[in-house]
Protein backbone atom coordinates (compact mmCIF):
# COMPACT_ATOMS: atom_id res chain seq x y z
CA UNK A 1 0.00 0.00 0.00
CA UNK A 2 1.23 3.42 -0.87
CA UNK A 3 0.89 6.01 1.82
CA UNK A 4 -1.24 8.85 0.51
CA UNK A 5 0.60 12.05 -0.16
CA UNK A 6 -1.09 15.27 0.67
CA UNK A 7 -0.07 17.16 -2.46
CA UNK A 8 -1.35 14.59 -4.89
CA UNK A 9 -4.62 12.87 -5.70
CA UNK A 10 -4.38 9.17 -5.12
CA UNK A 11 -5.16 7.53 -8.44
CA UNK A 12 -8.10 5.16 -8.53
CA UNK A 13 -6.15 2.76 -10.68
CA UNK A 14 -2.47 2.28 -11.18
CA UNK A 15 -1.32 -0.77 -13.07
CA UNK A 16 1.74 -1.78 -15.01
CA UNK A 17 2.84 -4.78 -17.02
CA UNK A 18 6.00 -5.57 -18.95
CA UNK A 19 4.19 -7.36 -21.75
CA UNK A 20 0.75 -6.19 -22.80
CA UNK A 21 -0.14 -9.15 -24.98
CA UNK A 22 -2.32 -10.97 -22.48
CA UNK A 23 -4.14 -7.80 -21.53
CA UNK A 24 -4.66 -6.89 -25.16
CA UNK A 25 -5.92 -10.30 -26.14
CA UNK A 26 -8.51 -10.16 -23.38
CA UNK A 27 -9.64 -6.75 -24.59
CA UNK A 28 -9.76 -7.92 -28.19
CA UNK A 29 -12.09 -10.71 -27.17
CA UNK A 30 -14.86 -8.22 -26.45
CA UNK A 31 -13.98 -5.67 -29.09
CA UNK A 32 -17.18 -5.96 -31.10
CA UNK A 33 -18.58 -2.53 -30.29
CA UNK A 34 -16.59 0.59 -29.66
CA UNK A 35 -17.99 1.69 -26.33
CA UNK A 36 -16.95 -0.39 -23.36
CA UNK A 37 -17.70 0.03 -19.70
CA UNK A 38 -14.68 -0.60 -17.52
CA UNK A 39 -15.28 -1.33 -13.88
CA UNK A 40 -12.26 -1.09 -11.64
CA UNK A 41 -12.35 -3.33 -8.60
CA UNK A 42 -9.98 -4.55 -5.95
CA UNK A 43 -9.50 -7.80 -7.81
CA UNK A 44 -9.13 -6.51 -11.32
CA UNK A 45 -10.88 -4.97 -14.28
CA UNK A 46 -14.23 -5.89 -15.74
CA UNK A 47 -14.70 -4.74 -19.30
CA UNK A 48 -18.26 -4.97 -20.58
CA UNK A 49 -19.56 -4.36 -24.08
CA UNK A 50 -23.16 -4.68 -25.19
CA UNK A 51 -25.04 -4.83 -28.44
CA UNK A 52 -28.70 -4.26 -29.18
CA UNK A 53 -29.68 -4.78 -25.53
CA UNK A 54 -29.43 -8.48 -26.31
CA UNK A 55 -25.80 -9.37 -26.20
CA UNK A 56 -23.41 -8.63 -23.39
CA UNK A 57 -19.72 -9.42 -23.64
CA UNK A 58 -17.66 -9.20 -20.48
CA UNK A 59 -13.94 -9.70 -20.03
CA UNK A 60 -12.78 -10.43 -16.50
CA UNK A 61 -9.19 -9.28 -16.25
CA UNK A 62 -7.84 -10.16 -12.84
CA UNK A 63 -5.15 -8.12 -11.21
CA UNK A 64 -2.51 -10.80 -11.69
CA UNK A 65 -2.47 -10.08 -15.41
CA UNK A 66 -0.50 -7.02 -14.40
CA UNK A 67 2.88 -6.90 -12.71
CA UNK A 68 1.64 -4.14 -10.47
CA UNK A 69 -1.97 -3.34 -9.67
CA UNK A 70 -3.25 -0.80 -7.21
CA UNK A 71 -6.82 0.22 -6.66
CA UNK A 72 -8.05 2.96 -4.40
CA UNK A 73 -11.70 3.53 -3.96
CA UNK A 74 -12.85 6.98 -4.92
CA UNK A 75 -15.12 7.33 -1.94
CA UNK A 76 -12.97 6.86 1.09
CA UNK A 77 -15.69 7.37 3.67
CA UNK A 78 -17.95 4.76 2.30
CA UNK A 79 -15.17 2.26 2.44
CA UNK A 80 -14.54 3.00 6.06
CA UNK A 81 -18.16 2.83 7.02
CA UNK A 82 -18.87 -0.56 5.69
CA UNK A 83 -16.35 -3.02 4.43
CA UNK A 84 -18.87 -5.23 2.73
CA UNK A 85 -20.39 -2.57 0.57
CA UNK A 86 -17.58 -2.47 -1.94
CA UNK A 87 -17.59 0.62 -4.09
CA UNK A 88 -16.22 0.16 -7.58
CA UNK A 89 -15.19 2.85 -9.99
CA UNK A 90 -16.56 2.62 -13.49
CA UNK A 91 -16.04 4.56 -16.67
CA UNK A 92 -16.77 4.20 -20.35
CA UNK A 93 -14.03 4.20 -22.93
CA UNK A 94 -13.56 3.70 -26.66
CA UNK A 95 -12.24 0.19 -26.62
CA UNK A 96 -10.85 0.27 -30.12
CA UNK A 97 -8.77 3.32 -29.33
CA UNK A 98 -7.40 1.66 -26.22
CA UNK A 99 -6.36 -1.41 -28.21
CA UNK A 100 -4.81 0.70 -30.98
CA UNK A 101 -2.82 2.62 -28.40
CA UNK A 102 -1.57 -0.55 -26.73
CA UNK A 103 -0.51 -1.85 -30.11
CA UNK A 104 1.16 1.36 -31.25
CA UNK A 105 4.51 -0.36 -31.66
CA UNK A 106 2.87 -3.28 -33.41
CA UNK A 107 4.03 -5.71 -30.73
CA UNK A 108 0.92 -6.19 -28.65
CA UNK A 109 0.21 -9.56 -30.19
CA UNK A 110 -1.17 -10.57 -33.56
CA UNK A 111 -4.33 -8.93 -34.66
CA UNK A 112 -5.73 -12.09 -36.16
CA UNK A 113 -5.45 -15.36 -34.34
CA UNK A 114 -6.11 -17.63 -37.25
CA UNK A 115 -3.63 -20.30 -36.25
CA UNK A 116 -5.57 -22.71 -34.13
CA UNK A 117 -3.54 -25.46 -32.57
CA UNK A 118 -0.68 -23.38 -31.32
CA UNK A 119 -2.98 -21.21 -29.31
CA UNK A 120 -4.29 -24.10 -27.33
CA UNK A 121 -2.13 -24.13 -24.26
CA UNK A 122 -3.13 -25.51 -20.95
CA UNK A 123 -2.74 -23.64 -17.80
CA UNK A 124 0.11 -24.96 -15.78
CA UNK A 125 -0.99 -24.57 -12.20
CA UNK A 126 -3.93 -26.89 -12.42
CA UNK A 127 -2.92 -29.13 -9.59
CA UNK A 128 -4.94 -27.67 -6.81
CA UNK A 129 -7.90 -26.12 -8.53
CA UNK A 130 -8.26 -27.89 -11.81
CA UNK A 131 -8.26 -31.42 -10.46
CA UNK A 132 -11.57 -32.30 -12.03
CA UNK A 133 -10.27 -31.19 -15.39
CA UNK A 134 -7.30 -33.41 -14.96
CA UNK A 135 -9.50 -36.42 -14.44
CA UNK A 136 -11.40 -35.64 -17.55
CA UNK A 137 -8.32 -35.49 -19.62
CA UNK A 138 -6.76 -38.55 -18.16
CA UNK A 139 -9.65 -40.84 -18.85
CA UNK A 140 -9.95 -39.32 -22.29
CA UNK A 141 -6.53 -40.42 -23.42
CA UNK A 142 -6.95 -38.63 -26.72
CA UNK A 143 -3.88 -38.95 -28.91
CA UNK A 144 -3.06 -35.37 -29.71
CA UNK A 145 -3.88 -34.27 -26.24
CA UNK A 146 -1.52 -36.78 -24.73
CA UNK A 147 1.24 -35.65 -27.01
CA UNK A 148 0.79 -32.07 -26.03
CA UNK A 149 0.88 -32.93 -22.39
CA UNK A 150 4.05 -34.92 -22.81
CA UNK A 151 5.72 -32.12 -24.60
CA UNK A 152 4.71 -29.76 -21.88
CA UNK A 153 6.09 -32.10 -19.26
CA UNK A 154 9.42 -32.17 -21.03
CA UNK A 155 9.65 -28.41 -20.94
CA UNK A 156 9.25 -28.57 -17.22
CA UNK A 157 9.31 -24.88 -16.49
CA UNK A 158 6.43 -22.76 -15.35
CA UNK A 159 5.95 -21.12 -18.70
CA UNK A 160 3.15 -21.99 -20.99
CA UNK A 161 2.42 -19.01 -23.12
CA UNK A 162 5.96 -17.76 -23.08
CA UNK A 163 6.95 -20.69 -25.22
CA UNK A 164 4.53 -19.60 -27.84
CA UNK A 165 5.38 -15.95 -27.51
CA UNK A 166 9.14 -16.35 -27.62
CA UNK A 167 9.02 -16.14 -31.40
CA UNK A 168 9.08 -12.38 -31.33
CA UNK A 169 11.55 -10.80 -28.99
CA UNK A 170 9.98 -7.42 -28.79
CA UNK A 171 7.48 -6.68 -26.10
CA UNK A 172 5.40 -3.67 -25.34
CA UNK A 173 5.33 -2.64 -21.72
CA UNK A 174 2.91 -0.17 -20.27
CA UNK A 175 1.87 1.74 -17.20
CA UNK A 176 -1.76 2.69 -16.85
CA UNK A 177 -3.18 5.34 -14.56
CA UNK A 178 -6.73 6.48 -13.98
CA UNK A 179 -7.00 9.36 -11.56
CA UNK A 180 -10.72 9.17 -11.14
CA UNK A 181 -14.05 10.34 -12.45
CA UNK A 182 -13.61 12.92 -15.19
CA UNK A 183 -9.97 12.19 -15.80
CA UNK A 184 -8.64 10.48 -18.89
CA UNK A 185 -7.08 7.04 -18.81
CA UNK A 186 -3.36 7.66 -19.11
CA UNK A 187 -1.08 5.10 -20.65
CA UNK A 188 2.67 5.20 -20.78
CA UNK A 189 3.90 2.72 -23.35
CA UNK A 190 7.43 1.71 -24.27
CA UNK A 191 9.01 -1.08 -26.23
CA UNK A 192 12.46 -1.09 -24.68
CA UNK A 193 14.45 1.27 -22.54
CA UNK A 194 16.35 2.77 -25.45
CA UNK A 195 13.38 3.16 -27.74
CA UNK A 196 10.67 5.75 -27.88
CA UNK A 197 8.00 6.23 -25.27
CA UNK A 198 4.38 6.90 -26.03
CA UNK A 199 2.00 8.75 -23.77
CA UNK A 200 -1.70 8.32 -24.42
CA UNK A 201 -4.59 10.08 -22.81
CA UNK A 202 -7.81 8.37 -23.69
CA UNK A 203 -10.98 10.23 -22.88
CA UNK A 204 -13.29 8.49 -20.44
CA UNK A 205 -17.01 8.97 -20.19
CA UNK A 206 -19.35 8.62 -17.31
CA UNK A 207 -20.57 5.07 -17.10
CA UNK A 208 -24.17 4.61 -18.02
CA UNK A 209 -26.28 1.91 -16.42
CA UNK A 210 -25.28 -1.36 -17.90
CA UNK A 211 -27.41 -3.98 -19.51
CA UNK A 212 -28.00 -6.70 -17.00
CA UNK A 213 -28.70 -10.20 -18.11
CA UNK A 214 -28.88 -12.22 -14.92
CA UNK A 215 -28.24 -15.87 -15.48
CA UNK A 216 -30.04 -18.27 -13.18
CA UNK A 217 -27.65 -21.11 -12.40
CA UNK A 218 -30.26 -22.88 -10.31
CA UNK A 219 -32.57 -23.34 -13.21
CA UNK A 220 -30.19 -24.45 -15.85
CA UNK A 221 -31.49 -26.32 -18.86
CA UNK A 222 -28.24 -27.14 -20.57
CA UNK A 223 -24.61 -27.13 -19.55
CA UNK A 224 -21.77 -28.17 -21.80
CA UNK A 225 -18.04 -27.86 -21.20
CA UNK A 226 -15.82 -28.57 -24.12
CA UNK A 227 -12.48 -27.69 -25.57
CA UNK A 228 -12.83 -24.40 -27.44
CA UNK A 229 -11.40 -25.81 -30.64
CA UNK A 230 -14.31 -28.25 -30.93
CA UNK A 231 -16.83 -25.43 -30.82
CA UNK A 232 -14.72 -23.12 -32.95
CA UNK A 233 -14.48 -25.64 -35.74
CA UNK A 234 -18.21 -26.20 -35.71
CA UNK A 235 -19.08 -22.51 -35.73
CA UNK A 236 -16.53 -21.58 -38.37
CA UNK A 237 -18.18 -24.05 -40.75
CA UNK A 238 -21.34 -22.01 -40.71
CA UNK A 239 -21.87 -19.67 -43.61
CA UNK A 240 -22.16 -16.01 -42.71
CA UNK A 241 -25.47 -15.74 -44.57
CA UNK A 242 -27.15 -17.71 -41.79
CA UNK A 243 -29.33 -15.63 -39.55
CA UNK A 244 -30.36 -18.06 -36.85
CA UNK A 245 -28.44 -20.49 -34.74
CA UNK A 246 -30.14 -23.11 -32.60
CA UNK A 247 -28.63 -25.17 -29.84
CA UNK A 248 -30.50 -28.40 -29.24
CA UNK A 249 -29.68 -30.62 -26.29
CA UNK A 250 -31.03 -34.11 -25.72
CA UNK A 251 -30.83 -35.62 -22.26
CA UNK A 252 -28.39 -38.53 -22.53
CA UNK A 253 -30.08 -41.88 -22.16
CA UNK A 254 -27.21 -44.00 -21.03
CA UNK A 255 -25.10 -41.44 -19.34
CA UNK A 256 -23.86 -43.77 -16.66
CA UNK A 257 -23.08 -46.65 -18.93
CA UNK A 258 -21.26 -44.31 -21.21
CA UNK A 259 -19.04 -42.92 -18.54
CA UNK A 260 -17.80 -46.37 -17.60
CA UNK A 261 -16.92 -47.37 -21.13
CA UNK A 262 -15.53 -43.97 -22.02
CA UNK A 263 -12.54 -45.51 -23.67
CA UNK A 264 -14.51 -47.46 -26.19
CA UNK A 265 -15.35 -44.57 -28.36
CA UNK A 266 -16.30 -46.46 -31.48
CA UNK A 267 -18.98 -48.50 -29.85
CA UNK A 268 -20.34 -45.56 -27.96
CA UNK A 269 -20.69 -43.52 -31.07
CA UNK A 270 -22.73 -46.03 -32.97
CA UNK A 271 -24.96 -46.76 -30.05
CA UNK A 272 -26.08 -43.34 -28.94
CA UNK A 273 -27.83 -40.60 -30.74
CA UNK A 274 -26.39 -37.09 -30.76
CA UNK A 275 -26.84 -35.33 -27.45
CA UNK A 276 -25.99 -31.85 -28.72
CA UNK A 277 -26.86 -30.40 -32.06
CA UNK A 278 -26.07 -27.00 -33.53
CA UNK A 279 -28.40 -25.95 -36.26
CA UNK A 280 -27.83 -22.92 -38.46
CA UNK A 281 -30.69 -21.62 -40.55
CA UNK A 282 -30.39 -19.35 -43.53
CA UNK A 283 -32.71 -18.40 -46.35
CA UNK A 284 -31.27 -21.16 -48.46
CA UNK A 285 -31.35 -24.02 -46.03
CA UNK A 286 -30.04 -25.35 -42.78
CA UNK A 287 -26.74 -26.73 -41.59
CA UNK A 288 -26.69 -29.12 -38.72
CA UNK A 289 -23.79 -30.32 -36.62
CA UNK A 290 -24.01 -33.10 -34.12
CA UNK A 291 -22.01 -33.92 -31.04
CA UNK A 292 -22.20 -37.46 -29.72
CA UNK A 293 -21.88 -38.41 -26.12
CA UNK A 294 -18.13 -38.71 -26.17
CA UNK A 295 -16.21 -37.62 -23.12
CA UNK A 296 -13.22 -36.69 -25.28
CA UNK A 297 -15.30 -34.00 -26.90
CA UNK A 298 -17.90 -32.96 -24.37
CA UNK A 299 -16.13 -32.93 -21.05
CA UNK A 300 -19.31 -32.12 -19.23
CA UNK A 301 -22.80 -32.48 -20.50
CA UNK A 302 -25.84 -31.81 -18.38
CA UNK A 303 -29.27 -31.45 -19.79
CA UNK A 304 -32.34 -31.04 -17.69
CA UNK A 305 -35.10 -33.05 -19.24
CA UNK A 306 -37.65 -34.06 -19.98
CA UNK A 307 -37.44 -33.84 -23.68
CA UNK A 308 -35.01 -31.90 -25.81
CA UNK A 309 -33.95 -28.37 -24.96
CA UNK A 310 -33.87 -26.01 -27.89
CA UNK A 311 -33.18 -22.30 -28.06
CA UNK A 312 -32.34 -20.05 -31.00
CA UNK A 313 -30.11 -17.02 -31.23
CA UNK A 314 -29.22 -14.52 -33.88
CA UNK A 315 -26.14 -15.82 -35.62
CA UNK A 316 -24.52 -12.37 -35.85
CA UNK A 317 -24.55 -12.20 -32.08
CA UNK A 318 -22.87 -15.55 -31.79
CA UNK A 319 -20.19 -14.49 -34.26
CA UNK A 320 -19.28 -11.61 -31.97
CA UNK A 321 -17.90 -14.21 -29.63
CA UNK A 322 -15.70 -15.87 -32.25
CA UNK A 323 -12.66 -13.77 -31.46
CA UNK A 324 -12.72 -14.76 -27.82
CA UNK A 325 -13.52 -18.35 -28.72
CA UNK A 326 -10.49 -18.55 -30.99
CA UNK A 327 -8.05 -17.44 -28.34
CA UNK A 328 -9.60 -19.41 -25.51
CA UNK A 329 -8.80 -22.87 -24.23
CA UNK A 330 -12.05 -24.15 -22.90
CA UNK A 331 -15.65 -23.16 -23.31
CA UNK A 332 -18.58 -23.52 -20.99
CA UNK A 333 -21.93 -23.20 -22.71
CA UNK A 334 -24.96 -22.83 -20.50
CA UNK A 335 -28.58 -22.05 -21.16
CA UNK A 336 -31.08 -21.30 -18.45
CA UNK A 337 -34.81 -21.87 -18.53
CA UNK A 338 -35.48 -18.47 -20.06
CA UNK A 339 -33.16 -19.35 -22.91
CA UNK A 340 -30.46 -16.95 -21.81
CA UNK A 341 -27.22 -18.23 -23.27
CA UNK A 342 -24.01 -17.90 -21.32
CA UNK A 343 -20.76 -18.66 -23.07
CA UNK A 344 -17.70 -18.57 -20.86
CA UNK A 345 -14.29 -18.77 -22.44
CA UNK A 346 -11.32 -19.67 -20.33
CA UNK A 347 -8.38 -17.64 -21.56
CA UNK A 348 -4.78 -18.85 -21.61
CA UNK A 349 -2.57 -17.67 -18.79
CA UNK A 350 0.86 -16.25 -19.38
CA UNK A 351 3.73 -17.72 -17.43
CA UNK A 352 4.80 -14.44 -15.96
CA UNK A 353 2.67 -14.04 -12.89
CA UNK A 354 4.03 -12.21 -9.99
CA UNK A 355 1.21 -12.29 -7.55
CA UNK A 356 0.39 -15.94 -7.80
CA UNK A 357 1.57 -16.65 -4.29
CA UNK A 358 -0.91 -14.32 -2.67
CA UNK A 359 -4.54 -15.30 -2.74
CA UNK A 360 -4.26 -17.95 -5.41
CA UNK A 361 -4.26 -17.30 -9.11
CA UNK A 362 -7.47 -16.66 -10.94
CA UNK A 363 -8.24 -17.63 -14.46
CA UNK A 364 -9.09 -14.81 -16.76
CA UNK A 365 -12.16 -15.41 -18.78
CA UNK A 366 -14.53 -13.76 -21.16
CA UNK A 367 -18.25 -14.26 -20.91
CA UNK A 368 -20.90 -13.63 -23.52
CA UNK A 369 -24.55 -13.58 -22.58
CA UNK A 370 -27.18 -13.54 -25.26
CA UNK A 371 -30.96 -13.50 -25.10
CA UNK A 372 -32.82 -16.14 -27.05
CA UNK A 373 -35.05 -15.32 -29.97
CA UNK A 374 -38.63 -14.95 -28.87
CA UNK A 375 -40.33 -17.37 -31.21
CA UNK A 376 -38.81 -20.44 -29.62
CA UNK A 377 -40.55 -21.44 -26.44
CA UNK A 378 -40.11 -25.17 -26.38
Amino acid at each position, binding site marked *: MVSPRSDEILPVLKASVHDVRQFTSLLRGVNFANRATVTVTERGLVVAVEEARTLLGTAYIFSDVFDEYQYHSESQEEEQQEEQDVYNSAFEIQLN*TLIECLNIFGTAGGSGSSGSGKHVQWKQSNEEQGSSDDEDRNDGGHGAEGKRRNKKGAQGGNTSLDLFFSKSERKTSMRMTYLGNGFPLTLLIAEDSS*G*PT*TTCEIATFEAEPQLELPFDPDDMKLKVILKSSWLKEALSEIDSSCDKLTFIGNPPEQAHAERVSGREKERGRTRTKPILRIQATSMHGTTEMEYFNDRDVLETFECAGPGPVSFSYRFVHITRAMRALQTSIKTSLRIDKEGLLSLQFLMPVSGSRRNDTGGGSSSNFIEFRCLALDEETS
Partner: protein
Amino acid sequence: MRFRTAIENPATFCKIVQAIEKLQKKCVIRFTEANIHIICASEANEGGMQVWSQIKVDSLFNEYRIQSNNNNEITVNISAEALAAALKSCSSNANRSYDTEEVVMKLAKKNEQAVLSFEILGTTPVGRKVRVAHDVKIEVLKAMDVEKLREPMCPEPDTHILLPPLHKLRTIADKLKLMSEILSIRASNNGCFQLSINTESVKVETEWRNLTNPKMRA
Protein backbone atom coordinates in the same frame (compact mmCIF):
# COMPACT_ATOMS: atom_id res chain seq x y z
CA MET B 1 21.13 17.85 -78.60
CA ARG B 2 22.76 14.58 -77.69
CA PHE B 3 22.44 12.34 -74.71
CA ARG B 4 23.68 8.83 -74.09
CA THR B 5 24.68 6.91 -71.00
CA ALA B 6 25.06 3.44 -69.63
CA ILE B 7 23.04 2.73 -66.51
CA GLU B 8 25.33 1.09 -64.06
CA ASN B 9 22.80 0.57 -61.32
CA PRO B 10 19.36 0.12 -62.87
CA ALA B 11 17.87 -1.38 -59.67
CA THR B 12 18.52 1.76 -57.64
CA PHE B 13 17.33 4.01 -60.40
CA CYS B 14 14.20 1.90 -60.63
CA LYS B 15 13.48 2.22 -56.89
CA ILE B 16 13.83 5.99 -57.05
CA VAL B 17 11.45 6.24 -59.96
CA GLN B 18 8.96 3.88 -58.30
CA ALA B 19 8.83 6.19 -55.31
CA ILE B 20 8.16 9.12 -57.64
CA GLU B 21 5.54 7.19 -59.56
CA LYS B 22 3.40 6.79 -56.44
CA LEU B 23 3.34 10.53 -56.03
CA GLN B 24 2.67 11.80 -59.48
CA LYS B 25 1.97 10.37 -62.91
CA LYS B 26 4.31 12.65 -64.80
CA CYS B 27 7.56 14.10 -63.66
CA VAL B 28 10.27 16.35 -64.98
CA ILE B 29 13.85 15.12 -65.30
CA ARG B 30 16.63 17.56 -65.86
CA PHE B 31 19.94 16.11 -67.00
CA THR B 32 22.96 18.31 -66.45
CA GLU B 33 26.63 17.53 -66.81
CA ALA B 34 27.08 16.57 -63.18
CA ASN B 35 23.62 15.70 -61.86
CA ILE B 36 20.19 14.52 -62.77
CA HIS B 37 17.28 16.20 -61.09
CA ILE B 38 13.93 14.50 -60.73
CA ILE B 39 11.29 17.12 -60.12
CA CYS B 40 7.63 16.85 -59.24
CA ALA B 41 6.24 20.30 -58.94
CA SER B 42 2.71 19.87 -60.18
CA GLU B 43 0.15 21.52 -57.97
CA ALA B 44 -2.28 18.74 -58.75
CA ASN B 45 -0.86 16.13 -56.46
CA GLU B 46 -2.26 15.39 -53.09
CA GLY B 47 -1.30 17.60 -50.21
CA GLY B 48 0.74 19.88 -52.47
CA MET B 49 3.85 17.78 -51.98
CA GLN B 50 6.76 18.61 -54.27
CA VAL B 51 9.92 16.67 -55.01
CA TRP B 52 13.17 18.36 -55.86
CA SER B 53 15.88 15.75 -55.98
CA GLN B 54 19.44 15.75 -57.12
CA ILE B 55 21.35 12.62 -57.99
CA LYS B 56 25.02 12.64 -58.84
CA VAL B 57 25.65 11.21 -62.29
CA ASP B 58 28.46 8.96 -61.02
CA SER B 59 26.18 7.15 -58.61
CA LEU B 60 23.93 5.72 -61.29
CA PHE B 61 25.61 6.04 -64.66
CA ASN B 62 28.88 5.66 -66.49
CA GLU B 63 30.01 6.75 -69.94
CA TYR B 64 27.67 9.68 -69.47
CA ARG B 65 27.65 12.10 -72.38
CA ILE B 66 25.45 15.13 -72.76
CA GLN B 67 25.43 17.98 -75.22
CA SER B 68 22.92 20.73 -75.86
CA ASN B 69 22.60 24.35 -76.82
CA ASN B 70 21.23 25.17 -73.43
CA ASN B 71 24.34 25.04 -71.26
CA ASN B 72 24.59 21.29 -71.88
CA GLU B 73 21.36 20.69 -70.03
CA ILE B 74 18.35 18.73 -71.21
CA THR B 75 15.02 18.88 -69.44
CA VAL B 76 12.28 16.43 -70.29
CA ASN B 77 8.73 15.71 -69.23
CA ILE B 78 8.21 11.97 -68.84
CA SER B 79 5.63 9.51 -67.57
CA ALA B 80 6.95 8.18 -64.29
CA GLU B 81 4.95 5.00 -64.70
CA ALA B 82 6.41 4.17 -68.12
CA LEU B 83 9.89 5.01 -66.95
CA ALA B 84 9.51 2.75 -63.93
CA ALA B 85 8.27 -0.08 -66.14
CA ALA B 86 11.23 0.26 -68.48
CA LEU B 87 13.69 0.35 -65.59
CA LYS B 88 12.05 -2.63 -63.97
CA SER B 89 12.85 -4.80 -66.95
CA CYS B 90 16.42 -3.46 -66.87
CA SER B 91 17.15 -4.57 -63.36
CA SER B 92 18.07 -8.21 -63.54
CA ASN B 93 16.66 -9.21 -60.19
CA ALA B 94 13.20 -8.17 -61.27
CA ASN B 95 12.91 -10.80 -63.95
CA ARG B 96 14.43 -14.19 -64.27
CA SER B 97 14.16 -14.63 -68.01
CA TYR B 98 17.51 -13.03 -68.71
CA ASP B 99 20.49 -11.57 -66.88
CA THR B 100 21.18 -7.99 -67.72
CA GLU B 101 24.69 -7.22 -68.91
CA GLU B 102 24.42 -3.71 -70.14
CA VAL B 103 21.78 -1.01 -70.21
CA VAL B 104 22.09 2.04 -72.40
CA MET B 105 19.77 5.01 -72.11
CA LYS B 106 19.78 7.57 -74.88
CA LEU B 107 17.80 10.36 -76.38
CA ALA B 108 16.34 9.48 -79.75
CA LYS B 109 13.72 10.53 -82.23
CA LYS B 110 11.40 7.95 -83.69
CA ASN B 111 8.73 9.03 -86.20
CA GLU B 112 9.10 12.64 -85.17
CA GLN B 113 8.49 11.66 -81.55
CA ALA B 114 11.22 12.31 -79.02
CA VAL B 115 11.84 9.26 -76.89
CA LEU B 116 14.14 8.10 -74.16
CA SER B 117 15.34 4.81 -75.51
CA PHE B 118 16.53 1.96 -73.28
CA GLU B 119 18.59 -0.81 -74.81
CA ILE B 120 19.13 -3.84 -72.67
CA LEU B 121 21.65 -6.49 -73.55
CA GLY B 122 21.32 -9.70 -71.65
CA THR B 123 21.87 -13.44 -71.63
CA THR B 124 19.20 -16.05 -71.15
CA PRO B 125 19.81 -18.91 -68.74
CA VAL B 126 20.74 -21.14 -71.72
CA GLY B 127 23.37 -18.65 -72.81
CA ARG B 128 21.65 -16.92 -75.73
CA LYS B 129 22.11 -13.20 -76.18
CA VAL B 130 18.99 -11.08 -76.05
CA ARG B 131 18.41 -7.47 -76.83
CA VAL B 132 15.40 -5.72 -75.34
CA ALA B 133 14.50 -2.16 -76.18
CA HIS B 134 12.03 0.20 -74.53
CA ASP B 135 11.12 3.59 -75.87
CA VAL B 136 9.54 5.96 -73.44
CA LYS B 137 7.85 8.99 -74.96
CA ILE B 138 9.15 12.27 -73.68
CA GLU B 139 8.56 15.91 -74.25
CA VAL B 140 11.69 18.03 -74.31
CA LEU B 141 11.01 21.26 -72.50
CA LYS B 142 11.91 24.52 -74.17
CA ALA B 143 14.40 26.79 -72.49
CA MET B 144 11.60 29.19 -71.71
CA ASP B 145 9.59 26.56 -69.84
CA VAL B 146 12.67 25.38 -68.01
CA GLU B 147 13.12 28.89 -66.72
CA LYS B 148 9.71 28.69 -65.11
CA LEU B 149 10.73 25.70 -63.02
CA ARG B 150 11.91 27.28 -59.85
CA GLU B 151 12.59 25.49 -56.65
CA PRO B 152 10.48 27.03 -53.89
CA MET B 153 12.34 29.11 -51.38
CA CYS B 154 12.43 27.41 -48.03
CA PRO B 155 13.28 29.25 -44.85
CA GLU B 156 16.37 28.14 -43.01
CA PRO B 157 15.31 25.23 -40.78
CA ASP B 158 15.33 25.77 -37.04
CA THR B 159 16.65 22.33 -36.37
CA HIS B 160 18.11 19.31 -38.12
CA ILE B 161 17.56 15.87 -36.68
CA LEU B 162 18.31 12.34 -37.79
CA LEU B 163 15.09 10.33 -37.78
CA PRO B 164 14.73 7.06 -35.88
CA PRO B 165 14.58 3.85 -37.97
CA LEU B 166 12.00 4.52 -40.64
CA HIS B 167 10.15 1.22 -40.35
CA LYS B 168 9.46 1.93 -36.68
CA LEU B 169 8.39 5.44 -37.49
CA ARG B 170 6.07 4.07 -40.10
CA THR B 171 4.43 1.55 -37.74
CA ILE B 172 3.58 4.34 -35.36
CA ALA B 173 2.44 6.77 -38.04
CA ASP B 174 0.19 4.05 -39.45
CA LYS B 175 -1.48 3.55 -36.06
CA LEU B 176 -1.88 7.26 -35.49
CA LYS B 177 -3.41 7.60 -38.94
CA LEU B 178 -6.32 5.45 -37.79
CA MET B 179 -7.07 7.75 -34.90
CA SER B 180 -6.59 11.23 -36.30
CA GLU B 181 -6.52 13.23 -39.51
CA ILE B 182 -3.84 15.58 -38.36
CA LEU B 183 -0.43 14.64 -37.06
CA SER B 184 1.90 17.08 -35.42
CA ILE B 185 5.66 16.72 -35.59
CA ARG B 186 8.15 18.33 -33.24
CA ALA B 187 11.91 18.20 -33.13
CA SER B 188 14.36 19.96 -30.90
CA ASN B 189 18.05 20.72 -30.87
CA ASN B 190 18.66 18.36 -27.98
CA GLY B 191 17.84 15.19 -29.90
CA CYS B 192 14.17 14.99 -29.09
CA PHE B 193 11.60 14.06 -31.72
CA GLN B 194 7.85 13.78 -31.20
CA LEU B 195 4.88 12.58 -33.17
CA SER B 196 1.53 13.41 -31.68
CA ILE B 197 -2.17 13.53 -32.31
CA ASN B 198 -4.80 15.34 -30.36
CA THR B 199 -8.46 14.60 -30.87
CA GLU B 200 -11.52 14.83 -28.70
CA SER B 201 -11.31 11.22 -27.69
CA VAL B 202 -7.60 10.62 -27.46
CA LYS B 203 -4.23 12.30 -27.15
CA VAL B 204 -1.22 10.26 -28.15
CA GLU B 205 2.35 11.40 -28.13
CA THR B 206 5.34 9.29 -29.06
CA GLU B 207 8.72 10.66 -28.15
CA TRP B 208 12.24 9.65 -29.11
CA ARG B 209 15.17 10.96 -27.16
CA ASN B 210 18.91 10.97 -27.76
CA LEU B 211 18.68 11.33 -31.50
CA THR B 212 21.48 13.05 -33.36
CA ASN B 213 21.33 16.68 -34.43
CA PRO B 214 23.76 16.79 -37.32
CA LYS B 215 25.82 19.92 -37.92
CA MET B 216 24.68 21.43 -41.18
CA ARG B 217 26.46 24.06 -43.21
CA ALA B 218 24.66 27.36 -43.12
